Structures are given as C-alpha cells and as structure tokens.
C-alpha cells in the first residue's frame, strides 16, 4: 500500500520555499513541511521523519545535513537523491537549477522523480522571476536616462522631443551602440560640461 510521502523543504528563501510548497500541494502532496531556519533542523527531521528532503544547493548548511545523515544509524537513512544514477540528465538539471534532494533509502525512483521535477521547475521559475524583475528594473533605469538625455538635447539644441529622440537613435545606429548607452554619454557629457 502506498502511503503519502512526507516531504520537507529546507530553504532559507521563504518566497521560493512557498512557491515549491504550493506546487507540491497542487500536485496532490499534502504532507509538506517547510523549514526556513537551520536551528533545530536536526530535531525537526527526527520528529517529522520525512521521506524526501528538498534543499537549496546554495546553502552552506548542506554539509551539516551530510553529517547529520552520517550519524543517523536508524533504518530511515536519508541519502542524496544522486545515488540513483540511472537518470543522470534529470539529476544534472537539478544541480544546474540549484536543487538538491535527499530521499529515504529504498524509496522507489518513480515516486521521487515527480517531486524533484516539480522542485526543479519551481526553482527555475523563481530564478526566471528574479531575472525578469532585474530586467524590468534596468529597463526602467534606461527609460529614465533616455528621458533625461532628451531633455538635455531639447534645451541645448532647441529641438522638439521627437527630434531629440530621433537624434539619439540616429547616433546610436551610427555608433552601433545601444540607445541607452548614447543617452548615458549625453547625460555624462552634460554634467561634465555643466550643460
């Protein structure tokens, strides 16, 4: 008889942890526990006795877990997911995405794989989200700098807004540079020349 797997997520990043948790719950796993703090982790593992532990590969506390598992002499000995090497591409994907997992020895691969796959996709989604946020921020910065450059040109060369923009764009094309870089140069030149 298959009992529901108990899954522990250890991630100091609360947002990412909750994204994974949500994904697992949607997939029908209702025995999910999220731990953010290394303090007391050993006791939590003992009490909850998870079948699968999903952790962020970037935590330096991973070595502590390794030690903990080395000391565990009971039958329920969690081992790194990677012991099963039959599916190395999915493991490589996990390492690349920054996920690591420990599973209780003897657990069937078919039962663990969807959990790891879910964690990997959520980890990726999270870093994509972060990237998008960073991109959006820099796009906003670029737009601001272009606005300032336009303003400087309008004032110093007595141009209309459209003409100022056209001049920036033409210069960028001639110089094979990004519009924002040209705008940056204009702003910098103006500040040096006191324009």
């Amino acid at each position, binding site marked *: 008889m298959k009992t529901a797997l108990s899954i522990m997520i250890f991630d100091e990043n609360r947002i990412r942890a909750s994204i994974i948790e949500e994904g697992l719950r949607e997939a029908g796993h209702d025995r999910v526990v999220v731990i953010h703090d290394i303090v007391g982790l050993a006791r939590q593992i003992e009490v909850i006795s998870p079948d699968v532990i999903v952790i962020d590969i970037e935590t*330096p506390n*991973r*070595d*502590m877990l*390794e*030690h903990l598992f*080395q000391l565990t002499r009971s039958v329920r000995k969690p*081992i790194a997911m990677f*012991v099963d090497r039959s599916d190395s591409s999915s493991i490589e994907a996990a390492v690349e995405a920054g996920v690591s997992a420990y599973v209780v020895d003897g657990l069937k691969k078919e039962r663990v794989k969807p959990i790891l796959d879910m964690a990997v996709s959520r980890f990726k989604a999270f870093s994509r989200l972060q990237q998008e946020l960073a991109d959006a921020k820099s796009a906003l910065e670029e737009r601001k700098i272009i606005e300032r450059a336009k303003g400087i040109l309008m004032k110093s060369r007595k141009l209309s807004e459209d003409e100022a923009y056209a001049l920036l764009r033409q210069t960028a094309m001639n110089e094979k540079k990004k519009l924002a870089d040209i705008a940056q140069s204009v702003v910098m030149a103006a500040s040096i020349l006191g324009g």
Partner: protein
Amino acid sequence: MSFIRTGIERSQGNGIAAPAAIRSERTRLVRAGFIPLVDASVLIAASEFGFAAREGIQLDLVKDVSWANIRDRLAFRQFDIAHMLAPMPVASALGLGSNPSPVIAPFSLGRGGNAITLSVQLYRRMQAKAELDGREDALTNARALKLVIDDMRSKGEDLPILGITYPYSSHNYELRYWLAAGGIHPDHDVKLIVVPPPMTSDALSAGVIDGFCVGAPWNMLAVEREVGRIVAVKEDIWPSSPEKIVGTRPEWAEQNPETLSRLIVALDRAAEWCDGHENRRELAQVLAAPRYIDASAGILHRVLLGKFTTDPDGAERTVPEYFSFHRGAANFPWISQAQWIFSQMVRWGQATYDPRTSRQAAAAFRPDLYRKALGSRLDIPSNDSRVEGGATDDGFIDGTVFNPLDISAYLAEFDIPTQVPKAPEQTVV
C-alpha cells in the same frame, strides 16, 4: 582593431596542416570548483599569476559553498577538477557518504593551515583548573580540557559542543586525534557538529558551539573578534597531516591525460611561487578579493606568514611552516597518507578494516599521475608510501608512528577508543 585580428587568423590558417605539437598549443579550459579558504591558494595563484596560461590552460575557478556541492558538481561534470578535502576521495572509494562517486587525487595542495579554537570562556576555565599561563603546548591544553570536562560532568553541566567542517575532513580527524591524545573521547565526552567555516566565529560568539577545528583564516578571525582562543595548530598534531587535494574524476583523467599533466606542471610552479614568503603579500592581496576569500588582505598576509594572535589578551605565536605549499614534497599524494586517513575512518567507526578496503582507500591517491607529469626530480620522493610520523620534525602529538603495512596493530595502540567501533552498513553503490 578588426584588421589586426584578421591578420592573426590568416597567419594561423595558412593552409599547411599544423604539426601535433602546435595543435596542442590550443588553450584548454579546465573548470575548477573551490571553497574560499587559504589552502585554495595554489589553484588561485595558478590562475591569477599566469602559471596555468603558460601551460596552455585556462582555469575557470568557480566558488562554492559546501563540500557536498563540490562533490556532486564534480560527479555531474559541472567541474573537471576541484579543491577537495583529502579524505573525500578516500570516502568515495569506500562508498561512504551521500552520492559517492569515483574521485582520484593526483596532486596535494600543500600542508598546514588548520587550527583548533575554543571559546575564550572555556579556555579561561581550563586556565583556572590546570593553572595554565598561556604558553603551554597543544597536548597540555588537551589535558586541561579533559580536566574541565570531568568537572562539568561531575556538576551535571552540558558537555562542550565542537564544530568541524565535514564528516570526512582533516578537521574531523585532527580534532579527534587531539582530543583523544588528551584523554577525551570525541564521541562520549564532547559533541561534534558541522558548522560551515565562515559561520564559526558567529556560532562561537552566540554560544552555539564551544570550539571548532577549521582552516585559515577562520581561527584568526575568531581571536580577532575576541571570541576565540587558539589552543592547537595542525603542526602540533601532525605536521604532514594531509589537508586539501586536487580531485578529479578518473574518467576525465583518462580522457584528458595531456591536460592533466599540464595542469599538474602549472600547479607545481604555482605552489613553488606560493611558498616564497616574499610573494605572500601579493598572494594575500589576490586572495582578499570578493571573488575568492573575501577577507582582509592584512589578516590573510599574517596568516600566510604563520604569525597570529592566539588569545584576545594579545598572546602571539609564530608557526613559520603554517603553510607549506611546495617544499618537502608537499604536493606529493602519498599512498601512505590515503591509508592513514582510512585508519582514522576505521578508528572512529566510519569504515571497517579489511585488507581489500585498505587497498581501495590507497588507490584514491595517484602518485603515478603526479610522477608522469613532473618526471623524476630530486625533490620528488622515490617511494609512493612511507612510515608516517617517524621523522623527528614530523611526529604525531602522541608519539605514535603509522606503519601502513600494519593498520590493525597501529589501531590497537590507542587507548581511545578501547575498541574500534562497528561501522554502520554502507549503501552499496
């Protein structure tokens, strides 16, 4: 600019087939994982000061946060080589730990660098109990700690908690060696837990741990922050104790024999350069960068010279050979040292002794690959194995000598443990 580049391209591709020697001049990319520690110096120097480039190697150094990650990322081909704890390839060879995957060690990254630090509070109690004036040697300090532990036990106090970096680490075996030499059983009289090195001073200051054994510069930082007292350095326990090695997958070594040989040549030159005390200021400045150790260049320089403050009260100590990167065959991967590591794994119940397992452990270190790259040289030992701890300036703290030919007799010499514990059954790989 583009004209110049085109010119170079044309002169290289002039239609005549390049001879093999020239074809091999292409730059080979070697991806290397490392943990920010002073004993990664040789790898960092090889990359930063042109030793790798001179051998046609571009070393791509990738900083990581845990030894478990280093192990897994090497196993899953994100790294070609890695800065590793010397016991890691031995553990892998024996199938110990999570994800044991074959790793070989063709090059050792030098000697030294570790120290044992206790909380100032615990050390002051040792001083009071054993009338220490601060100038005692490491063995006297261990015996004083034993007195304090006996006292704690009789008063029903919590026993000390000491930090190590990884279950299969020189730190674990050195700390245990020092404790046992002082009459302290590392599994009964104290509790050992893993603390990531950069967190050691914080953990000490918060009272989570009462001491730790880690590499440089973390011991010195704990003294600097006035939370720790250095009570022993690696040289006190056993100067030749193997520390970090360059690990690689056997299959990578087989598929890239020339790259590996060139890498060993580059590391040999870099190690020789790192050994020069006159170069250590420059080395410290590079190590201090955020992409490497990210610590003060001043402290790193003092650490590299083996000059450190051992006590917040200002007591100083100089260990001139605190870091030996090259001299005294420091890069030679002695088979007998792989076997010594194995003997400690058996001593503390991580592995079970039998001759076959002993041979497996020995095969993790590869002096043959080291010799193949560097040829015969006066400073390269003629044997792959030796009796360890026999030389007068290279003894163990308790005066024992390790004969790799008789590990069982060696283990029987120790009072702690009285009987070698039974190792748990390992997952068959």
